[in-house]
């Protein structure tokens, strides 16, 4: 393929339009002026070569084709039925009126009534925990790091805690105490919540035992009397 069989598209002068979308920028050099297309020469293989007789035959063929071609005429327009102006008007959203048939009116009315009843079923949206348990379980406070890994992490980052920002580069704001320091860790909270039923069970059992002991003691006393 020849190297110059296309006109190179240039971006010169289009930067603002491309980068910022400024439509007011007109392309003055959108297509770089390429070398003029050369006139075909008799030796050019793309040029059709005909003898005089062949040219006459070709002309005759074309003339015959034109004379026998069907005449194109504009199709007759069928008369459209006159618009029915006595239809009941229905107000559209813009306050204008549109003529609608009774069927259409009832359809519209149904649509409005249905639209009022549409509501979002929030219960159909699964809660976060149900979507990806494996991901939710990745809370670092719930996952125990192996001791050697935890030690390595802490060792790597001990400088973070120690290296207070230099006066030249103070942090953006005063460092706050980590939120985990003021609130129990989720793991601790989970442990407590699991212990509560157990403790309640033990308390009830002890109360029942005491009641039974008191009852037995009283019965023994009555028997002795």
């Amino acid at each position, binding site marked *: 393929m020849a190297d110059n069989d296309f006109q*190179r598209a*240039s*971006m*010169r*002068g*289009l*930067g*603002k339009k*491309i*980068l*910022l*979308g400024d439509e007011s920028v007109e392309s003055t050099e959108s297509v770089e002026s390429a070398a003029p297309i050369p006139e075909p020469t008799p030796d050019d293989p793309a040029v059709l070569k005909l003898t005089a007789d062949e040219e006459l035959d070709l002309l005759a063929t074309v003339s015959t084709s034109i004379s026998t071609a069907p005449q194109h005429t504009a199709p007759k327009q069928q008369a459209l039925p006159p618009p029915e102006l006595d239809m009941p008007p229905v107000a559209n959203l813009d306050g204008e009126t549109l003529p609608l048939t009774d069927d259409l009116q009832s359809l519209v009315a149904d649509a409005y009534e249905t639209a009022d009843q549409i509501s979002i079923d929030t219960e159909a*949206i699964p809660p*976060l925990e149900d*979507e*990806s348990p494996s*991901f939710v379980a*990745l*809370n*670092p*406070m719930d*996952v125990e790091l192996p001791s050697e890994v935890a030690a390595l*992490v*802490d060792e*790597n*980052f001990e400088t*973070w*805690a120690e*290296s*207070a*920002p230099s006066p030249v*580069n*103070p*942090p*953006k*704001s005063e*460092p*706050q105490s*980590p*939120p*985990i320091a003021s*609130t129990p*860790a*989720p793991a601790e909270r989970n442990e407590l919540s699991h212990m509560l039923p157990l403790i309640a069970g033990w308390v009830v059992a002890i109360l029942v035992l005491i009641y039974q002991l008191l009852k037995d003691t009283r019965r023994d006393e009555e028997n002795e009397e």
Partner: protein
Amino acid sequence: MTRTLVIANQKGGIGKSTTAANIGRALTEQGYQVLLIDLDPQGGLSAALGVDSYDVQFGSHIFLLHDSAPIYRVSQRIGDNLFLMPASLHLTVAEIQLARRTDAVIRLRDALERQPPPVDFIIMDTPPTLGILTANGLVAADELIIPVQCQYLAMRGVRTMMQAMQRLQKNVNPSLQLLGVLATLYQAESLHSQEALGEMRSVFKQRMFETVLAYDDIMAEAPVAGKSIIDYAPTHPAAHAYRALATEIINRGN
């Protein structure tokens, strides 16, 4: 004062992650402490520094979702003065979960304000979309770097990025500023590339970084070794380019 930078452009494959990794590394060469945050579920930044996002258990997804996640637990030391909060594939799920929260786009900003890391620079890499993860980066940052490949189709995305920045400036993060537009993947022998760079410079003028990152195979090779270009090929022109870019970033902040 900690400077918080975000590198964003919704066009993919234009060198965002490579730029984040190497700017961070170049800044540490000049004695700064840097925390890199990978917000792209594809984990390009993490991979460029030798951390496989398929193996990441504690990363930016935890930091975004759990208020109590300590920052030092979700980050790793990558080198002297260089720390990385890597991306995990779970970041995709995190984005879905964030979408249901009213504070979806301010999660990262709030988390960094609660636990400001003692570093000089925070640099965030974002996914090639304008979704919640990118928005978190744009809201948490003060300065935006837009890398743009020197190519027509890549340049078309800059407009959307600028509009996103303006909207966030107006509604959520008034402190967000365009630090600069960075020409990447430049091919000196390409007339198209030359024109693209010329047009970008004519539009953004002084907002264009003088440093131009040329296309080079070294950018694809260095991540294979899990190293920044500065560590992989310290004397390579690309390494020098990133050093120059880091200097520009430092100077623009002064």
